[in-house]
């Protein structure tokens, strides 16, 4: 049969093609349905995960709040510690004042005459009131030392001069017992960077002990210097300390051997412990050598302070105070290339003026009240809290450009090259000590 111009075969082929297409579509539809159900499944899983994340988020928020709470509690605790020390001091010292003055007045006859027996017994009281006073003072000092609240006021001190003063106050006491008090200084001056009153107290305590425990012979105080330290030693020819007791020498309330006298004479048993804490706070060491019945030597070292050490110390102070509360801190250094030659050519006065100008320019470029600039005479340090390294690099460049643009003055200054250095916590270092080490040549 012929019609539409198509043969039977052609029509059959079209039908087959159509059939194939239908089969394709059906298969496709089937795949779509499968994908659809997979998608649905995936969507359900996503919902579960989202729910899970939301829960985790909540938990993190809660932990964060707890952390914040604990932090504030710690800060309060810290404040309470300080308050406790101050309040305890007040509460203990007030009754002592009353007791002391009341007894003292009766003893002085202000409230009628007293007989010798009464005088003797009241004097006993007075002695122990004074002993209590020293004990309280020592305990409060230990409390401060151990809680890190003992503030050292460091300055340049001539240890030789300090020792001369302290031993002068012991001359008569030593002479009364028939002891010789000798000094052996290997140089006429010995400069350390220390808290004067604390170190004086250490010497007073150690020399006092030596006199207390020496029946006859001599006490020698010597001071020598090594390249990095000042070594002090107090030797006596006294009773000495037994080998097994020696390790406990610096422990609180340990006192060895019998002592003549009582009350005040006895001491608090805390002196050496306090001395040790003070020496260690100054980053020195203290140790004892002794032989029973031959004598004892107490040795301690104090870090020798040169100009560089003073500069280092003050920068360390700034860094250790700034670091604990920051996630990041950047230390910048701005200085003159080859500072020593510059200073030699320009002279002290001009160098000083130059550094002041440099400092002023740096200060004009930093954030007031947030950033710190330190002029140590050789370089300008800048502390940028809470700034990441990359941003700090940009800031450095900005400041550097500003300096170069605005540095004016004497002819030689205009040719001066300003170098910069950058150390970032935590990317370049892990601690204040670390940071300091990286800029050591600039300090």
């Amino acid at each position, binding site marked *: 049969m012929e019609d539409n111009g198509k043969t039977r075969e052609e029509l059959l082929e079209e039908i087959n093609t159509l059939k194939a297409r239908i089969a394709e579509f059906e298969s496709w539809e089937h795949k779509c349905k499968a994908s659809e159900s997979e998608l649905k499944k995936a969507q359900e899983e996503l919902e579960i995960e989202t729910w899970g994340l939301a829960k985790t988020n909540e938990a993190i928020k809660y932990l964060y709040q707890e952390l914040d709470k604990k932090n504030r509690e710690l800060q309060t605790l810290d404040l309470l510690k300080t308050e406790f020390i101050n309040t305890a*001091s007040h509460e203990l*010292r007030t009754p002592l004042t009353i007791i002391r003055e009341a007894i003292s007045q009766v003893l002085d006859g202000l409230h009628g005459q007293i007989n010798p027996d009464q005088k003797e017994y009241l004097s006993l009281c007075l002695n122990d009131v004074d002993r209590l006073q020293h004990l309280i003072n020592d305990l409060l000092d230990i409390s401060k030392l151990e809680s890190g609240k003992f503030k050292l006021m460091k300055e340049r001190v001539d240890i030789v001069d300090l020792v001369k003063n302290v031993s002068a106050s012991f001359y008569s006491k030593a002479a009364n017992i028939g002891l010789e008090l000798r000094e052996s200084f290997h140089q006429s001056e010995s400069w350390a960077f220390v808290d004067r009153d604390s170190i004086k107290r250490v010497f007073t305590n150690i020399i006092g002990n030596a006199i207390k425990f020496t029946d006859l012979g001599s006490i020698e105080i010597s001071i020598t210097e090594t390249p990095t330290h000042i070594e002090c030693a107090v030797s006596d020819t006294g009773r000495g300390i037994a080998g097994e007791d020696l390790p406990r020498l610096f422990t609180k309330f340990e006192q060895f051997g019998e002592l003549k006298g009582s009350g005040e004479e006895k001491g608090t048993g805390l002196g050496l412990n306090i001395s040790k804490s003070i020496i260690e706070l100054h980053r020195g060491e203290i140790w004892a050598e002794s032989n029973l019945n031959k004598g004892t030597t107490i040795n301690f070292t104090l870090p020798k302070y040169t100009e560089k050490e003073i500069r280092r110390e003050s920068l360390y102070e700034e860094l250790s105070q700034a670091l604990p509360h920051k996630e990041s801190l950047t230390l910048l250094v701005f200085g003159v290339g080859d500072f020593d030659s510059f200073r030699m050519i320009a002279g002290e006065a001009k160098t000083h003026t130059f550094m002041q100008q440099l400092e002023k320019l740096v200060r004009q470029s930093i954030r007031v009240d947030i950033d710190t600039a330190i002029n140590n005479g050789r370089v300008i340090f800048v502390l940028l809290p809470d700034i990441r390294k990359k941003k700090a690099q940009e800031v450095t460049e900005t400041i550097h450009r500003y300096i170069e643009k605005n540095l004016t003055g004497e002819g030689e200054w205009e040719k001066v090259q300003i170098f910069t250095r950058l150390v970032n916590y935590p990317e370049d270092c892990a601690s204040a000590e670390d940071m300091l080490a990286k800029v050591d040549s600039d300090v």
Partner: protein
Amino acid sequence: MPKKILVVDDDPTILRLIATRLKANNYNVVTAPDAVYAVKKAHEEKPDLIILDIKMPAGGGMSVIENLKMASNTMLIPIICITAEASPEVKRKAIELGAEDFLAKPFHAEELLARVKKALGEDTPPKEII
């Protein structure tokens, strides 16, 4: 003529003890138990010296110093501070506000008397006029 000393302390026992000691050494003594009374008495009695406990309740002690050093008829009266808490910060603040001297409790009577003499100018020989 015996000098007049105003003693200020919130503890009545201490007030009494210091007063007794000073009287036994021929000083006239006026006492005050708190900051308000202290300022009032200072203006009324015009003492030659004030001994002041600076750790009185409600920051009283420091306010007395401030107050008296600002008023023209009391600003020249020397003030000796006494306190059980002799921290460097407290000492420095007191001196900054104008106190002449500072004594820690518990003190020995001899020390108190020596400081009193010094503040009243009794321990130095009269200056020579050339």
